[in-house]
């Protein structure tokens, strides 16, 4: 191990590229996510040996093999629970959970919501392609109602989750969304996820070329995407459209789209984003995939709340102050008697 690798200032993209051949399908959105991660990680100010990637099962979960860091490709749905153990065991580590809509929201849904509730300082990147890829194309818990797949030849009849709403309902403290095609934006979101102290939940809309191609076409097609994406910026009015003339306005408690070029409206009528506002975050998460409304991209919610392992270590430190002693002391504590 050379000193240069220990000095985080000099880490390079190549330091994070493992010797394993990447085995995703050609054209998969996962490549873009891997590329952005490898680009951003050298600059996060963390020693390379302190990065840990934990994944479950699914296409996305192969990710740790391709990062030359500590990694653990575990079992289906359990990455959040395993990562919780890693972080509580060693809070110094920068822990990243790589999961998908099936892994993190279906079989592992319970662990995801409880991780968010506890607010352990780990980072979740959830690749949402709205389909099961690795098992060859069944519908997922984020697939739209009526989805025709191998397992639902007449269309799916269960309603999908909206991951952002689920995360918010689980009392997540950082909820953001990005797109596999928006590389710069994704880099920014990875940096923001890392900077947040607490669980960060980053949903990445990711295209599955084989089983669900075009799922996010309206957000990636150059001709229409400007009208369908609402880029969020803290403290800024929620404007969108190619000329930023459309805005989100609250009509009572119902979000509607207004045109600020219309005499009736001005920019003052547009809702201003506040990352710390739970109500605004609720509105933003709910307008996802709503007909007539754009899809919010960016940080929907970011608030500092108590972090699990901080409280945990504080309890340990306090206990050490209040009570000295080792196993020997406990062995001999209480009523004892001696046989001569």
């Amino acid at each position, binding site marked *: 191990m050379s000193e240069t690798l220990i000095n985080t200032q000099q880490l390079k993209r190549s330091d994070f590229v493992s010797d394993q051949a990447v085995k995703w399908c050609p054209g998969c959105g996962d490549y873009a996510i891997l590329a952005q991660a490898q680009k951003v990680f050298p600059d996060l100010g963390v020693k390379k040996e*302190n990065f840990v990637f934990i994944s479950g099962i699914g296409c996305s979960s192969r990710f740790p093999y391709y990062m030359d860091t500590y*990694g653990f490709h575990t079992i289906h749905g359990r990455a959040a629970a395993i990562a919780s153990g890693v972080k509580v*065991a060693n809070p110094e580590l920068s822990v990243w959970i790589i999961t998908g809509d099936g892994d993190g929201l279906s079989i592992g849904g319970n662990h995801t919501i409880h991780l968010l509730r506890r607010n352990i300082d780990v980072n979740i990147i959830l690749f949402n392609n709205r389909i099961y890829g690795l098992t060859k194309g069944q519908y997922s818990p984020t697939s739209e109602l009526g989805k025709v797949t191998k397992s639902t030849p007449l269309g799916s009849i269960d309603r999908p989750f909206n991951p952002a709403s689920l995360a918010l309902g689980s009392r997540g403290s950082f909820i953001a969304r990005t797109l596999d095609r928006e590389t710069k934006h994704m880099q920014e979101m990875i940096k923001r996820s890392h900077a947040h102290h607490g669980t960060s939940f980053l949903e990445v809309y990711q295209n599955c070329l084989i089983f669900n191609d075009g799922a996010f076409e309206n957000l990636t097609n150059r001709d229409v995407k400007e009208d369908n994406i609402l880029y969020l910026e803290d403290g800024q009015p929620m404007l969108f459209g190619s000329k930023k003339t459309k805005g989100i306005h609250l009509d009572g408690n119902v979000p509607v789209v207004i045109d600020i070029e219309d005499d009736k409206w001005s920019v003052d009528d547009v809702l201003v984003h506040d990352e710390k506002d739970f109500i605004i975050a609720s509105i933003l998460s709910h307008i996802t995939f709503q007909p007539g409304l754009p899809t919010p991209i960016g940080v929907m919610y970011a608030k500092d709340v108590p972090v699990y392992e901080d409280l945990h270590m504080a309890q340990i430190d306090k206990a050490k102050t209040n009570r000295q002693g080792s196993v020997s002391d406990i062995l001999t504590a209480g009523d*004892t*008697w001696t046989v001569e």
Partner: protein
Amino acid sequence: MSEQTAEMKHVEEVIIRFAGDSGDGMQLTGDRFTANTAIIGNDLSTLPDYPAEIRAPAGSLAGVSAFQLRFSSKDIHTPGDEPDVLVAMNPAALKVHLKEIVKGGTIIVNANAFTPKNLKLAGYETNPLEDDSLKNLYTLYSIEMTKLVVAACADMDLSSKDIERTKNMLALGYLFWMYNRPLENTKTWLKQKFAKKPLIAEANIRALDTGRNYGSTTEVFTTRYTVAKAQLRKGTYRNINGNYATALGLAAAAEKAGRPLFYGGYPITPASDVLHTLAAWKHMNVRTFQAEDEIAGIAAAIGAAFAGNLACTATSGPGVALKSEALGLAVMAELPIVVVNVQRGGPSTGLPTKTEQADLYQAVYGRNGEAPIPVIAAATPGDCFYAAYEASRIAVMYMTPVILLTDGYLGNGSEPWAIPSMDDLPDIPLKFVTEHNGEDRFLPYLRDEKTLARAWAIPGTPGCEHRIGGLEKGDPTGDVNYDPDNHHVMIMRRAEKVNGISRELPETKVYGKKSGDLLLLSWGGTFGSTRSAAEKLQSEDASIGHVHLRWINPFPNDLGDILAKYDKILIPEINAGQLRTMIRAEYLVDAIGLNIVRGRPIRSRDIIEKVKEMVG
């Protein structure tokens, strides 16, 4: 009759069973008698027996909670077969437990609880205290316990409910008189327990005194008993139950290994006390994580092991079922974790508060694929400490999950325990790799030549970055590998590694005859009953031996030779014959089973009868 004139009789041992409603405080009463008896220096063994319902309807048969205690001037191994004394706080308690009391035994009841309503709830058509059904067969002491405590505390500013609740202390005070035990330890304990409620403490102390005085001043009781100190080996002793001992063994292993102890788990009867105990030891850097479910409990433990803590979880059978996929991951990732199964009655939810030994197959075989896991079983409550320590030592030394089997009886039962010194416990050789062990990289599956343990480097170690996972690993790179020959090699390596643990096992001890007519072979919590039976048979010159198995996977290397030295083999188990099947399969011997699955320890008497039937 005064205290001085009561006849004092010396007896070798006594078995008392306290029984009452779930809310009558029978577990606490039994606990206090146990603590006091331990300090006096008797050997003892206890068996708490409580319902799964927290508070079943008052007075109902379902709500009866009991605590059995055997104390002796001799070295004993079990809480005893048939109680000499039954304390029944209501008709339901009498109904449930009467049939197990030795004929001619003593029955002490709270007469005030024998109301028409309670008699009806217990299914009595007439009051058994008023006819001759009990008096002809037992020595019956019918005491108006409720009335006595109400009178004793009449001047106190307490609700009648609070006062009536002290009747268990009255029963205890009376028994302390009857068995010649001081009250001071219990009074001190009551003052501490109710430090913030001095009135409650005072009421309980008054009840305790009232019980003692009742014994010494009324003319009802003609005999008191003494049980001499047991001749235990030299040492400093304490009373300990199995779940506490398990927690202590895990903490001792972590301290010896110099690592934080991480416990990930989900509450489940009868294992939750392991979590409760460890949660109070944060000052020793014990990290407890109450997870969202059983799966997350073990998953977090696996994560903590990956990060370099000594990691463990405790559960019971249904919890192990949920953890089995993660156990497979720990096998594949070759990470050290200890999984404690405090076995209870199954299948499914089964009998949550009753004991059983029916998770042996689950421990040895219960996973997909070839997933060998070492399995160790504790023999007594105090042995849970050593078994937990040994499980941790082997886990770390061999880089493997280890399953520790205890059971509800061991977990909740208690016995006097010679306190070990930390210095006397074996070392736990835990070494992390900090440099490349391959030419230009870290090879996570490069194995120790002797133990076959893989190399362990933890996150935070510069230069040893590596990836592991549940997919088959390449030997020794740890890279994902689908090669057929590699898979075969890895399957065999993992099996060889676990089998190799037999080299750590000491020579198997045979109690009694080293060869002969019959070998008693036991494992886990059946140790006590089997050893007691063996001692009795030995004293009658029967040609029998007794071997108790501590490790069930792998078996000790000398077991086959020992089995061959006896004409017959009898395996008593609280299951339908799980060890028997394994022994027959492994050694091709005609082992016979004694399988009594009643949610309770097998009685020594049943084992003795079976042996006599087999060898005439």
